[in-house]
């Protein structure tokens, strides 16, 4: 059976596309799927850094498309997680090095090789975005609870619908305390404007910074709230669409906090 192509996009930059792509990819691979994550941000690659694989890049996506290598040669296998592969972007070219028809061809090949291919879309709605969505089957739109991010996500959703792709929404970097005080948009506010299916909610988490800087997979960190949320998102994305969404909330009482500390296994 042919694999799925899923694009992770947002419009606005810096909302967490790359981290989420890497984490969902890792989580799906841990579930036993053959997963490839493709960095579409040609010229400004960083998915390789987030995954801690930058020192192993030999070929990149532009080399594949220009026929200088095969997909198998360019795909870098993750050492910690089986079945997880990275196809890095080129750092010396720009977005125009790839045309939409090249992506249709590449995604056709990827479908044969992998169960799930995740495309890490660059910010913006130009060539890089067009290339990323042209062959995608599904889309994950990442949005933070900020008015500017919501505006851009709305634009992206319109463009995705125009391509007959039905997007799913991930709201990232929720700070429950600020939401409670009314200083931050709640995920309900975001969903009300965007009106698309919600895939998951991710709480602001310091582990993310550590994980992206050291290149260790976030989903392997048991204590990370974001890692946990991303594992659930991966489940909902593939095979378990009915898994309930966990709403990040402040842990109210001291006793609750204490008990959750004691119940932790390691």
């Amino acid at each position, binding site marked *: 059976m042919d694999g799925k192509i899923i694009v992770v996009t947002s419009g606005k930059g810096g909302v967490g596309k790359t981290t989420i792509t890497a984490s969902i990819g890792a989580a799906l691979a841990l579930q036993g799927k053959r997963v490839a994550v493709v960095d579409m941000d040609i010229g400004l690659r960083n998915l390789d850094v987030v995954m801690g694989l930058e020192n192993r890049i030999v070929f990149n996506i532009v080399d594949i498309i220009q026929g200088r290598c095969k997909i198998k040669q360019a795909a870098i296998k993750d050492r910690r997680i089986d079945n997880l592969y990275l196809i890095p972007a080129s750092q010396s070219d720009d977005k125009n090095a790839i045309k939409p028809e090249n992506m249709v061809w590449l995604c056709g090949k990827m479908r044969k090789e992998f169960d799930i291919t995740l495309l890490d879309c660059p910010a913006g709605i130009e060539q890089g975005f067009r290339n990323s969505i042209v062959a995608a089957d599904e889309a994950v739109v990442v949005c933070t609870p900020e008015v500017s991010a919501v*505006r851009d996500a*709305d*634009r992206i959703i*319109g463009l995705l619908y125009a391509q007959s792709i039905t997007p799913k929404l991930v709201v990232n970097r929720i700070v429950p305390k600020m939401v409670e005080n009314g200083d931050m948009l709640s995920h309900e506010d975001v969903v009300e*404007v965007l009106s698309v299916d919600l895939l998951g909610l991710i709480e602001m988490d310091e582990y993310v910074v550590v994980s992206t800087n050291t290149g260790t997979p976030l989903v392997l960190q048991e204590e990370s709230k974001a890692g946990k949320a991303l594992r659930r998102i991966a489940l909902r994305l593939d095979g378990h669409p009915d898994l309930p969404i966990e709403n990040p909330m402040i842990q109210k009482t001291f006793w609750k906090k204490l008990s959750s500390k004691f119940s932790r296994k390691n």
Partner: protein
Amino acid sequence: MNFKEDTPPVKLKGVGDSLWVTINPSLPIDQLKQGLITPFQRLKHLAVNARIIIDTGAEDLENRDELIETLGDFLKKEFQVGHVTKPVTPNRSVTQNRIRQQDMGNSWHHYQNDGLVIAGRVRSGQKIQAKKHLIVLGDLNPGAEAIAGGDIIIMGSLQGKASAGQPDNEEAIIVALEFKPTQIQIGGFVAGGMADSAKNRPEFAYIENNAIVVDDYIKENPFRRLAWPEVR
């Protein structure tokens, strides 16, 4: 009035809110009817419910009333015109009102819609343009744009930019069930939306004393005062 040999049997011009039809009464009735068909066909739906004045020239013509009645019936049957009269100085009276009511009652059957009705959510970056009125059954998101020659009616939340009465219709209004636009324009007037000003009630914007005013639509409905329901 004298009719020359080469005068066309029928002449048509717009006078006030009526169509003034000048006929040559010396010609046979069939030729007159034939002469009426061409200009009225050209009018298409504009002829529907139009008020017609048939001018036979000389007032002392013996079969004048009969001729006007025959041609009037013909026009009503063929082109659904409204009231047909002979040229008289209009005398505004009770009968006038009755005629207006009659015409109004008939007018909806033939009225051709020139509003654009859209269902769904208009998202950021999307732009909807209507020649005349625009009705959106859904929300207009921030960053989206609606432009209309006439009114804009949003059956949902208006959060984007709405420009009604473009380019210069200052009678146009903007109505929304939830009124929190980024910006609105009516004709040449512009107003910025104010954060958190929405009352969670239908509101509408219109021009008063060269400024855009926003009011509660239920309380201040501007059309309640109209004597007759009319086409906008």
